C-alpha cells in the first residue's frame, strides 16, 4: 500500500509551513481572539487548601458588585451535571467540574463568577467568603496507602483508586531460573508541557433552542466530547463544538480541558449567556494538567550473557485528587509496547493508581512511555554494569531482529515495521561512540566527570481506543453493561472546486505540527499540483466536520492516520477526474496520467485536459459526464486500522497502531562543585517510517528533547508536604530558555515504511520525550561512577546531584 519514494514530488521535502505566514504577522487565530457580542467573562475562585471541607460559601457581596452578572457555586453542581466517569474507577468516586462539599487539591475551583470583564470578575472573587475546615493532606503515593493516611474519597474508603496486576508469561519461573537479577526503586517526578497559551473556553447558550455552542483550545480525542455532553446532561446534537484554527501548544495537556468546558458551560446555561474563560498562568499551574509521577520497584532477570528474560515491576502512580479521563491510562497507554524494542517475553506489572491531594494528572507528550522506558533503560544499565558489559552491547543483544517484523509483543502489540539494530548502529556511528568513550577515559584522568548514556524505545503512534480498557479487569469487561472499545480513525474531506482549485478540510486540531502544510504536500502529490494550490482548513466543527471518537491531535497520530485519510480522499476525487478526462478524451482511464495540473494520455502528453477543464465539466456540464456519474467533485474518507482490535481476556492489546523507534545517546559533564550538568553531545536516531517533511520532524525532535532536558534538570510540578503547589509561576517552574536548550543535535533517520498507512508514515512528535529522560539519567550516573553515585530519582537539580555526591562521600 505504501508508495515508493520516487513517486512523490512534495512528500519528503522540507516544504515551508504556510501557517507561519500568519504567525509572523500576529494573525494566528487562537481561542482568546474569538469574541462574541455582549460576551461575559468568567473567573474561578480556587481553594488555598490542599484538603478541606467546605462548611459554607457566601457570595452575596460578590453578586452585589457593579458589573457582576452571576455566580455558580459548588453545591449547585450535582443538581445540574453528572460526575465524570473514568475507566476502571468506581462510580462511587464523584468528580465534578467544581468542588462540591470538599476540596481535594490546592487550586480546585469552588466558585465561578461571570462579570462584564475579567478585572471585575476577579474583584468579585475577593468578596466571596468561604469557610473551610482544613483536613490533613497526603502527597506521597506510598504514605497515602498506609493505614492511618487521610482518605480523599471517603465513599471509597481507600486512596487506591485503580489497581491492575498485568501478567504475561511466567515471571516467577523466569526469576527462579535467572542467572542474574537486578532491582532498584525509582522515583519519576511530575512535570508537564506548560504550553505558552493557557486553556480557554467560550460557551454560548441559547435557552430558546436549548442549544450550546462551545469554543475551546481542545485537541481531542473527541471521545471526550461525548463525555462532556454526558456530564452536561445534554444530547450531543444539542452541542456544537468548535476548535479555533490555531492552538498555542498542547503537548497532550489540552486533552484535559473538558472539565473546565463543563464548568463554563454550566454557568453559561444558568444565565443563558455567552461566557468566555481564559485561564491565567497561575491557574494553569495549579489547575491545568500535569503528567503523573511514579514510584516504581523494578526487577530485571537475565542470563549471564546479558539476555533479558523478564521484568517484574510494581508502580505507585500519583494521579492526583480525581481521575480525569483518559486516566488512569498514564499506566496503560504503553501496554502493548511495555517491552520496548527488546525480545523478552515475560513481564508482570502491578499498577496502582493512588489519589493524592494534588492536581489530577493528564496526558502529556510520551504519555506513560517515558516512565516505562526510564525504569527499563535504567535497570538495563545496572544489569550491564553487573555483567561488565557495555550499554550499547547489551542493548544490541536484546533488540528485536529486522526479520521478526511484523512483531507480536507478549503484551499484544503488533509492531508494524522496523530495523531497531540499524537505528542503534547508526546512532553509535553518528555519536562516534568509541571516540567519545576514549575521550571520557582521558577526561577521567584529568579529574573531569564525563558520562555517556544510551536509551532506546519503541515510539507508539495512533492510540487504539482499546488501550483505555486495560484499566478494567477482565471480569469487569465481561459484564453485559460494558461496551468494548477499539479504533483509531481519522477523517478528511477533499473537494475540487469548479475552477479546479483544491480545498481540504481536516479536524485534527493542530497545535504546532503544521498540519495544514503537511496535508497540502500530501494532497498536492496525489493531484500532481503544487502545495501552494491546495487550501487546507484544519478546524474542527462538530456540526459540520465529519469525525470519529478518536479524532484529534494526540498520540502522534496525525502523520500516520490523518495523512492516510487525506491521501485516500484525494485519490477518490482524482479517480473520478481521471474517469471524466478519459471520457472526454475518449481514452481508457488506465491510460490517463496526471501531472503539472494536467490530465493527459500516456505517451501523448499533447492530448490533455487541464484540471480546471475537468473540474469545470464535473460542476458546470454534468451532461458530458459518463452516464451515471454524479455531479461535483468532493468526498470524505475515514481511515481506520484493521489492526485496531479490542483487548483480549488475557489483557493483550495492540494499544497503538503504528510503532516507530528511537535511540538516544547523550554525553554530559557534571561539575562536582555545583552539581550542575552540561550537555556535551546528543545524538538521536529515529524511525518514523516515511518522513513526510524533514524540517517539521526536526522541529518536533528538537522540541521533544528540549522538553525532556527541562523535565530532567529544571522542571518540577512541586508540592510541599502540606499539598501546596509551590511552583505556580514561570519564575519557579523553570522551562528551558534558548540558553539551556541544546545548540545542536545530531539527528539521524532510518526509514522502514509502515505497511499499514497510505504513505508508510508513522508518528514522530512524542519521540525522544520518551527516551531522553532515561538517556540523560544514564549519562549522569555514568559520569558519577567514580564517586559511586546511583541515579534513581528525578529531577536532577544541581542541589540534588550535589547532595548525592556528598552522601556518597560520607559512605566512603
Amino acid at each position: 500500500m505504501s508508495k515508493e519514494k520516487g513517486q512523490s514530488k512534495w512528500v519528503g521535502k522540507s516544504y515551508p509551513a504556510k501557517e507561519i505566514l500568519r504567525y509572523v504577522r500576529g494573525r494566528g487565530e487562537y481561542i482568546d481572539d474569538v469574541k462574541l457580542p455582549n460576551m461575559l467573562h468568567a473567573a474561578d475562585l480556587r481553594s488555598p487548601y490542599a484538603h478541606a471541607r467546605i462548611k459554607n460559601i457566601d457570595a452575596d457581596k460578590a453578586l452585589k458588585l457593579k458589573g457582576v452578572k452571576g455566580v455558580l457555586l459548588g453545591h449547585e453542581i450535582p443538581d445540574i451535571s453528572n460526575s465524570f466517569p473514568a475507566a476502571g474507577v468506581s462510580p462511587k468516586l464523584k468528580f465534578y467540574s467544581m468542588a462540591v462539599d470538599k476540596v481535594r487539591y490546592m487550586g480546585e475551583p469552588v466558585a465561578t463568577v461571570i462579570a462584564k470583564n475579567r478585572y471585575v470578575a476577579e474583584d468579585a472573587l475577593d468578596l466571596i467568603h468561604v469557610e473551610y475546615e482544613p483536613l490533613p493532606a497526603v502527597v506521597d503515593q506510598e504514605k497515602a496507602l498506609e493505614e492511618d493516611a487521610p482518605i480523599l474519597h471517603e465513599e471509597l474508603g481507600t486512596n487506591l483508586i485503580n489497581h491492575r496486576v498485568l501478567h504475561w508469561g511466567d515471571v516467577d519461573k523466569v526469576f527462579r531460573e535467572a542467572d542474574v537479577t537486578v532491582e532498584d526503586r525509582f522515583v519519576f517526578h511530575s512535570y508537564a508541557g506548560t504550553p505558552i497559551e493557557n486553556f480557554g473556553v467560550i460557551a454560548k447558550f441559547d435557552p430558546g433552542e436549548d442549544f450550546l455552542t462551545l469554543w475551546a483550545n481542545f485537541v481531542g480525542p473527541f471521545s471526550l466530547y461525548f463525555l462532556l455532553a454526558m456530564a452536561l446532561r445534554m444530547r450531543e446534537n444539542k452541542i456544537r463544538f468548535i476548535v479555533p484554527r490555531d492552538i498555542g501548544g498542547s503537548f497532550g495537556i489540552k486533552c484535559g480541558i473538558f472539565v473546565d468546558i463543563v464548568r463554563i458551560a454550566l454557568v453559561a446555561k444558568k444565565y443563558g449567556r455567552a461566557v468566555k474563560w481564559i485561564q491565567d498562568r497561575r491557574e494553569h499551574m495549579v489547575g491545568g494538567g500535569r503528567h503523573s509521577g511514579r514510584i516504581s520497584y523494578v526487577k530485571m532477570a537475565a542470563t549471564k550473557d546479558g539476555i533479558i528474560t523478564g521484568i517484574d515491576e510494581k508502580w505507585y502512580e500519583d494521579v492526583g485528587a480525581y481521575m480525569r479521563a483518559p486516566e488512569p491510562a498514564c499506566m496503560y497507554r504503553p501496554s502493548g509496547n511495555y517491552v520496548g524494542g527488546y525480545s523478552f517475553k515475560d513481564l508482570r506489572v502491578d499498577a496502582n493508581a493512588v489519589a493524592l491531594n494534588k492536581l489530577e494528572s493528564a496526558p502529556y507528550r510520551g504519555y506513560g512511555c517515558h516512565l516505562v522506558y526510564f525504569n527499563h533503560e535504567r535497570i538495563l544499565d545496572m544489569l550491564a554494569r553487573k555483567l561488565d558489559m557495555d550499554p550499547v552491547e547489551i542493548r544490541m543483544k536484546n533488540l528485536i531482529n529486522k526479520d521478526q517484523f511484523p512483531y507480536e509483543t507478549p503484551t499484544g502489540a503488533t509492531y508494524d515495521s522496523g530495523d531497531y539494530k540499524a537505528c542503534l548502529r547508526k546512532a553509535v556511528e553518528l555519536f562516534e561512540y568509541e571516540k567519545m568513550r576514549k575521550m571520557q577515559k582521558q577526561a577521567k584522568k584529568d579529574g573531569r566527570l564525563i558520562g555517556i548514556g544510551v536509551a532506546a524505545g519503541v515510539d507508539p503512534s495512533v492510540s487504539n481506543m482499546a488501550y483505555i480498557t486495560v484499566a478494567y479487569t477482565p471480569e469487569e469487561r465481561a459484564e453485559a453493561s460494558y461496551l468494548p472499545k477499539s479504533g483509531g480513525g481519522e477523517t478528511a474531506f477533499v473537494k475540487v472546486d469548479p475552477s479546479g482549485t483544491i480545498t481540504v478540510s481536516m479536524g485534527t486540531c493542530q497545535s504546532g505540527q503544521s498540519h495544514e502544510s503537511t496535508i497540502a504536500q500530501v494532497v498536492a502529490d496525489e493531484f500532481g499540483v503544487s502545495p501552494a494550490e491546495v487550501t487546507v482548513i484544519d478546524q474542527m466543527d462538530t456540526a459540520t466536520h465529519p469525525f470519529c471518537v478518536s479524532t484529534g491531535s494526540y498520540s502522534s497520530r496525525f502523520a500516520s492516520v490523518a495523512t492516510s485519510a487525506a491521501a485516500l480522499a484525494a485519490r477518490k476525487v482524482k479517480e473520478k477526474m481521471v474517469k471524466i478526462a478519459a471520457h472526454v478524451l475518449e481514452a481508457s482511464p488506465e491510460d490517463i496520467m496526471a501531472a503539472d495540473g494536467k490530465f493527459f494520455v500516456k505517451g501523448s502528453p499533447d492530448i490533455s485536459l487541464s484540471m480546471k477543464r475537468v473540474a469545470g465539466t464535473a460542476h458546470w456540464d454534468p451532461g458530458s459526464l459518463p452516464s451515471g456519474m454524479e455531479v461535483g467533485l468532493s468526498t470524505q474518507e475515514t481511515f481506520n486500522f484493521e489492526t485496531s482490535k479490542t483487548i483480549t481476556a488475557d489483557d493483550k492489546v495492540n494499544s497503538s497502531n503504528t510503532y516507530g523507534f528511537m535511540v538516544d545517546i547523550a554525553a554530559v559533564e557534571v561539575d562536582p562543585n555545583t552539581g550542575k550538568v552540561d550537555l556535551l553531545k546528543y545524538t538521536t536516531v529515529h524511525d518514523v517510517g516515511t518522513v513526510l517533511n524533514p524540517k517539521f520532524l526536526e522541529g518536533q525532535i528538537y522540541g521533544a528533547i528540549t522538553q525532556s532536558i527541562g523535565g530532567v534538570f529544571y522542571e518540577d510540578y512541586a508540592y510541599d508536604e502540606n499539598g501546596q503547589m509551590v511552583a505556580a509561576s514561570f519564575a519557579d517552574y523553570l522551562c528551558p530558555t534558548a540558553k539551556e536548550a541544546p545548540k545542536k543535535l545530531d539527528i539521524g533517520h532510518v526509514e522502514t515504511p509502515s505497511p499499514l498507512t497510505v504513505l508508510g508514515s508513522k508518528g514522530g512528535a512524542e519521540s525522544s520525550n520518551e527516551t531522553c529522560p532515561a538517556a540523560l539519567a544514564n549519562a549522569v550516573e555514568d559520569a558519577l561512577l567514580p564517586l559511586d553515585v546511583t541515579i534513581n530519582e528525578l529531577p536532577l537539580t544541581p542541589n540534588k546531584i550535589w547532595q548525592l555526591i556528598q552522601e556518597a562521600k560520607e559512605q566512603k
Partner: protein
Amino acid sequence: MKPCAFEYFDPQSVEEVFKLLDKLGDDAKILAGGQSLLPMINFRLARPEVLIDINKLDELDYIKEENGYICIGALTRERAIEDSELIKSKIPILSEAVKYIAFLPIRNKGTLGGSIAHADPSAELCLMMIALEAQIKIESSQDARWVDAEDFFLTYLTTVIEPHELITEIRMPIPAAETIHSFQSFSRRHGDFAIVSVAVVLEINDDGICEGAKIALGSVNPTPLRVAEAEDMLIGKKLDAKLIEAVANETAEASDPDPDLHSSADYKREMARNFTKKGLMQVLKRFEENA
C-alpha cells in the same frame, strides 16, 4: 491575574511627589520601573490603594561623575547603567553585574532606585550597593538624608525608607585605579534569581599585597551580606590558593541562608564558598595578567 483597582497619579516633579506622599503616606506605593511591583500587583499579592508613578521625573534619570563619586539618579534604567561608558570605565564591575538582571526588556524598564527600594536579597543591584559602599539619598518634603548602603537594607523587602520619603540619588565612590574585581553569579537558569552571587573588589599594590578588600554576597542572608571578617584576612597579604581557601570558608561561615524550592541552606552556603573562591581566583588571575 488582573490588578485590583487603585488610584493613579503621575506627578511631573519631585515636589509633587512629596506633596502626594505627605497626603497619602502609607496607602501609596511608588511605581518606578515596575518590573518587580507589577508582577506582584498582577498576582494581587500587592494591593496598593494608590500608585504614584514617578516615570515622568526625567530629573532623576542621569549618570554623572562628581568629585570622586559616580552619581546615578534613582530613575535611571538598569539598561542605561549597563550601557554607560562612564560606568564601564570607572566601575566596570557594576556594568558586569547588571547584565545578570533578568532579561533586556526587564532592564529596559527596571530602575536602580526601584530595585534597591524593593530590597530583594537576591537582587544584583542591592548586592552592588553594599559591595561599592554606595550612599543612598532619601528625600522628603521636610528634609534630605544620605544613608550608607550598609544601613539601608533592614531585612527581606524592607529598608529604612519612610512612607513619606523617596529615593532620589545613589552615589558610589570611584574605586582606586589599582582595584581588581570579580562578579560571580550562580542561578538555575539564565536570568533567574541567583542561588548565590558574589562581588569581590580588591585593591592590590604592585607587590601583590592586598591593601583594600570588599567581599559581598547576595541571596545568602535576609539582606545583601558584606563579610568584614573575610576582608580582614586579606589585608596586607598576598593572594594565594591557601589564603583564598581560608577566605572562602570564612565567607561561607558568615552566610546565613534560608532554604527555598531550588536550594537548601547547606547548598547555598556551599555555593557561597565555591563562588567566593571562584571570584578570588579570577581576581588573582586578572592581577597576574596585568603584572
